[in-house]
C-alpha cells in the first residue's frame, strides 16, 4: 500500500532547478533512506512532504505529491493538519525552551488533549518509546537544555510522535550524535517501523544500509537510482551510484 507518491516533481529556488522530474513512492510502514552528496536535493525533497519549503524565497514546485492519495499541494489542504500527519526530526536537536515534560505535553495539547492524567501517562509512554524514560524520570521539570545532544534528539523524536503522525521525516537525525546515541536512534527507528512510514536523509551509507528497506540515490537534483537497500549497497545498477557508495565519487 503506497503512502507517499511523488509524480514528476520539480522544484526551483528562483532560477536554480533543485529537483528535476522526480517520481518516487513509499509503501506504508517502510523505511526509505535518501542518500547523495551535499547539495543534491535530498533534504529539499524530504521537506516537500510536509511543505517545509513553502516559505523559501522564490520557491516553485511542479508535479504532484500525494499522501494517502491526497495532493498535499492542493489549495484545500490545511498545512497545520498535514504537519500533524507528517512529523519531522531535524539534524540539530531543537527542543523548546521548556521543561522536558512540557516539550512533549505541548504536542499533546496541540493535538487537543486536555485531560491532565492522560497527558501525564502519554508523556511517560512517549519517553519510553524513545528509550528516554529511565534517563529523565527524575528530572521531568528540568529544562530540556540540561540533556545531552543524544537525549535532546530523542526528546524531539518523542515530541514529533506526540501529535500522532503517520509519517516521520528525519533529516540526518544522528548527524550531531556520538555512536552510542546514533545506535539508540537507529534502534528506535527499527522499533517504530511497524507503526510509521519513515523517510530519512542520511550521509552515513552504513546507517542507510542498516535501517532502511529502500534507498534512493540523488545526484545533482536527479533521482539516479531507487531500489531495495540490499540491491543499492551490494549491486547497484548505475555506475554513479556505485561510485558514490564506494567513495569514488567526485
Amino acid at each position, binding site marked *: 500500500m503506497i503512502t507517499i507518491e511523488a509524480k514528476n516533481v520539480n522544484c526551483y529556488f528562483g532560477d536554480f532547478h533543485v529537483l528535476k522530474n522526480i517520481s518516487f513512492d513509499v509503501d506504508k510502514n517502510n523505511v526509505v533512506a535518501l542518500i547523495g552528496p551535499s547539495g543534491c536535493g535530498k533534504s529539499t525533497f524530504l521537506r516537500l512532504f510536509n511543505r517545509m519549503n513553502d516559505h523559501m524565497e522564490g520557491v516553485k514546485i511542479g508535479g504532484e505529491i500525494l499522501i494517502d492519495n491526497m495532493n498535499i499541494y492542493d489549495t484545500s489542504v490545511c498545512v497545520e493538519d498535514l504537519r500533524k500527519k507528517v512529523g519531522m526530526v531535524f539534524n540539530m536537536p531543537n527542543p523548546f525552551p521548556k521543561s522536558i515534560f512540557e516539550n512533549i505535553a505541548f504536542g499533546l495539547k496541540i493535538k487537543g488533549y486536555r485531560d491532565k492524567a492522560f497527558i501525564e501517562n502519554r508523556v511517560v509512554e512517549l519517553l519510553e518509546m524513545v528509550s528516554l524514560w529511565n534517563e529523565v524520570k527524575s528530572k521531568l521539570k528540568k529544562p530540556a537544555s540540561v540533556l545531552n545532544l543524544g537525549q535532546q534528539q530523542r526528546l524531539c523524536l518523542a515530541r514529533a510522535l506526540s501529535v500522532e503522525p503517520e509519517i516521520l521525516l528525519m533529516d540526518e537525525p544522528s548527524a550531531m550524535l556520538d555512536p552510542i546515541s546514533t545506535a539508540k536512534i537507529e534502534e528506535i527507528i527499527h522499533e517504530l517501523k511497524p507503526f510509521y512510514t519513515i523517510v530519512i536523509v542520511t550521509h552515513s*551509507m*552504513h546507517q542507510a*544500509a542498516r535501517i532502511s528497506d529502500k534507498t534512493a540515490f540523488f545526484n545533482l537534483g536527479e533521482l539516479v537510482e531507487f531500489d531495495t537497500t540490499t540491491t543499492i*549497497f*551490494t*549491486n*547497484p545498477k548505475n555506475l554513479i551510484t*556505485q561510485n558514490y*557508495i*564506494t*567513495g*569514488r565519487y567526485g
Partner: protein
Amino acid sequence: MRLLEHELLALRKDLIEMWKLVNSQVINATEAIMSFNQDIAQKVVVRERKVDAFELKIDSACEHILALYHPLANDLRFVLAVMKINSNLERIADFAYGISKIMIAHPSIIIDAEVISDSRFNLMSKELVKMLNQALESFDSEMTDKASSIFFEDTLIDEINNQAPEIITHYLQLNPDRIFDCLQLIGIFRKMERIGDHCSNIAEEIIFYIEAKVIKHSQQDNDDQS
C-alpha cells in the same frame, strides 16, 4: 587514490602472488609423481609454509579492510570473494603438499607408466593447471567467461577420477604385488579430484565478485537433475 583503493590493490597483488605460488605447487606435485622425483616433491613440502603464510596475511588484510573501511557494493564483493578464494587456494596447496608427502614417505613407490597413461593422469594434471590459470586470468581481467568454463572442465576431472579405480583394478589383477602402490595412486587421484572441486569453488567466487550472481550449489543442482 583513496586509502581503500590502495588497500584493495595491495590485497589483489598478494592474492595473485599466492595464486601463482599455488599453481606452481600443483605443477610440481604432479610432476613429482610422473617423474618419481623426490627433489621436486621436497620443494613442494618446503614451500607449503610460504602458502600458509600468504593465507594468514591475506586473511588479516581482509579483516583489516572490513573493520576499518566498511567496503560496499563491488568493493565488498571483492573482499568477500578474496577471503573465500584465499581459503580455497590454501586447500589446493594442502592437496599438492599431500601428494608430495606420499612421494617422500614412500620413496620406493613405483607407478607403472602404463597405468599412468591409461588412467589419464597426465591429462588430469594438465587440466587442473589449466583450470587454475583460467581462474586467475578471469579474476585478474574481471571477465567471467573463463571462470564459467571451469565448471565444464571440472566434469572431465570427475570423469577421470571416476574411471581411475576400474583401470587401476584391472592393472592390479595383472600385477597383484603392486597393491600398496596402487592404493597410493587412488589416494592421489582423490586429492586431484578435490583440487578440481576447489577450482570450481573459486570460479563461483569470481562470478559473484564480478557479476554479483550467487551460483553456489546451482552446479550441484544441475548435476543432480541430469
